[in-house]
């Protein structure tokens, strides 16, 4: 490949160093106890050893769990509203997985649809995504059922493939091509490198065992939407903790609230979840008071409602909702066992 490059593993620290001159670089990190994409400390590249995927999805880097929208202040002549200062920093995320990169492409559709969401979109525009193909996926992963390859991505700017002693680097977007051309310390590739990378991707693909049957999925969900028995059975063990939604790379529901002290305060938004009855509660009634309705909503939203509206599935098969669920709820089982009718 003409514009692909390679780099030795021991040079990754130096590469991140070089990129840190232009970008604020973030990498997979366990610094806060729970794996997330956090600012690089300038030396530690041990994530290359332990990293399979993060617990906190990279959506948090663009759509944080808590976000100030604006401040307000009551002055003599009335209320004054103040937006947070604009962030001129350019960001680079190193190591994002193909499933999580697809999730950002999906989130772009949410935050661009009809009305532009300035907070999310400004961060997206300021960030370069450097993908890292999976070599050791979890058994909860099912990305290949969603048309995503664990080793490939069209949703990043640059793609890295672990070839053992080094990385095979492919530009994906124009932004990535520009960055790679301007990056020093990377070597031209030989045919053998490309062949090796291809083998690694194939091997990763074969390691994804779990499947979800997505054939006619919208019609199949519509057919059993009113099947209360099925949804009650599926929801029985769910404890409505919301973990599957908070840690889902595509879940984007949020709440908006105010904080006040004296005559000034902050309007902020925070992650919310369709797992909670209060999410839809109104003074007189609640359309999704029962747990089975909430579980049904989550599944149907991801595989039926969202793709109907914006032509992209709101699930990337990252498997976090299976791997990190306290009661082993499994969306693939729910989807694979849909009854044929109500």
């Amino acid at each position, binding site marked *: 490949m003409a514009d692909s490059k390679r780099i030795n593993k021991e040079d990754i620290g130096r590469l991140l160093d070089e990129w840190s001159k232009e970008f604020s670089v973030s990498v997979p990190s366990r610094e806060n106890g729970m794996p997330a994409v956090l600012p690089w400390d300038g030396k530690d590249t041990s994530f290359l050893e332990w990293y399979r995927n993060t617990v906190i999805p990279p959506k948090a880097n663009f759509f944080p769990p808590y976000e100030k929208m604006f401040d307000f202040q009551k002055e003599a002549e009335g209320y004054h509203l103040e937006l947070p200062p604009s962030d001129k920093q350019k960001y680079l995320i190193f190591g994002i997985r193909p499933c999580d990169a697809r999730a950002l492409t999906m989130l772009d559709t949410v935050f661009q649809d009809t009305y532009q969401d300035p907070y999310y979109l400004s961060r997206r525009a300021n960030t370069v995504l450097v993908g890292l193909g999976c070599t050791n996926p979890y058994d909860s992963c099912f990305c290949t059922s969603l048309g995503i390859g664990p080793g490939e991505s069209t949703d990043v700017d640059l793609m890295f493939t672990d070839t053992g002693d080094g990385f095979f680097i492919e530009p994906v977007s124009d932004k990535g091509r520009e960055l790679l051309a301007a990056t020093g310390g990377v070597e031209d590739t030989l045919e053998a490198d490309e062949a090796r990378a291809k083998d690694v991707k194939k091997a990763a693909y074969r390691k994804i065992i779990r499947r979800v049957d997505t054939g006619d999925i919208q019609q199949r969900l519509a057919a059993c939407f009113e099947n209360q028995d099925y949804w009650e059975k599926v929801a029985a063990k769910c404890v409505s903790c919301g973990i599957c939604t908070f840690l889902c790379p595509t879940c984007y*529901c949020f709440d908006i609230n105010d904080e006040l002290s004296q005559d000034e305060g902050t309007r902020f938004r925070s992650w919310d979840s369709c797992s909670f009855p209060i999410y839809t509660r109104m003074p007189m009634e609640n*359309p999704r008071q029962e747990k089975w309705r909430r579980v049904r909503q989550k599944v149907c939203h991801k595989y039926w*409602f969202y793709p109907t509206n914006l032509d992209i599935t709101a699930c990337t098969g990252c498997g976090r909702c299976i791997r990190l669920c306290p009661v082993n709820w499994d969306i693939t089982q729910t989807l694979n066992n849909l009854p044929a009718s109500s």
Partner: protein
Amino acid sequence: MTTDVSQRFLARDNVYLPHIAVIEKIIDETPGVVTLHFNFKDEKLREEFTFKPGQFGEYSVFGIGEATFCISSSPTRRDHLEFAVQRVGKVTNALHRLDVGAEMGFRGPYGNGFPLDSFTGKNLVFVAGGIGLAPLRSLIWNVIDDRDKYEKIDIVYGARSPADLCFKYDLDAWGNDSSINMVTTVDKGDASWTGREGFVPQVLEQAAPSARNAVAIVCGPPIMIRFTFPVLEKLGFTPEQMFTTLEKRMKCGIGKCGRCNIGNLYVCRDGPVFSFAQIKGFISSEY
């Protein structure tokens, strides 16, 4: 790479940033409901602001939060804007505590509004319960101000008790308008009530407006809406001739925060006005 994108996105037309509005008048409707008249502080906006009947806004009491209400005044009467608030929660209580001259925030107008153009030349049947008259009253006044464009007007309006009837000044005005057939009912009257008693769907059935060349526009508590559609079907209205404006818990108002969906439709972005044809598949199960 040199464009300051974050500045561009944040500063220009940040959809979450409310306009400052000033309360100009407060009308007590019922023991729990007030109508607030307001105007924007910014003069340019005051002149440029337009909306359609049925559209809504997100209203802020800074420090307490935002809540969703339709604009209850008519776009044909531009002197000020109105909305009606039932005291039920944190924000609505705070709105009830505002005095004339107080400032609040407003984002909007959001939502689709009523398909007014498609109502031209039709008989209009309005069916409302309680504070559900608020969005319809915007439409009704709009229609009255353009009276020649429409044929017969029937209004069936009810509340739980005489004290719960909202917009009594409108009910009087419409009752005195010979071009309108106005039927007011209460579930249960009191000692001084001499009018009709009965639930809205039943009273509608008795009034029996013709479905010929007509559309019905329904708004009220979900239970009233659920029982009204079958009555309209019995009267010969097709699902395409029946419209309602729905209420759901909302936060963003612009189709992003997630909670107000009925199936793939968002009440805030695709509604709040729907034909019964659009939502009948979901209405039994999610509404």
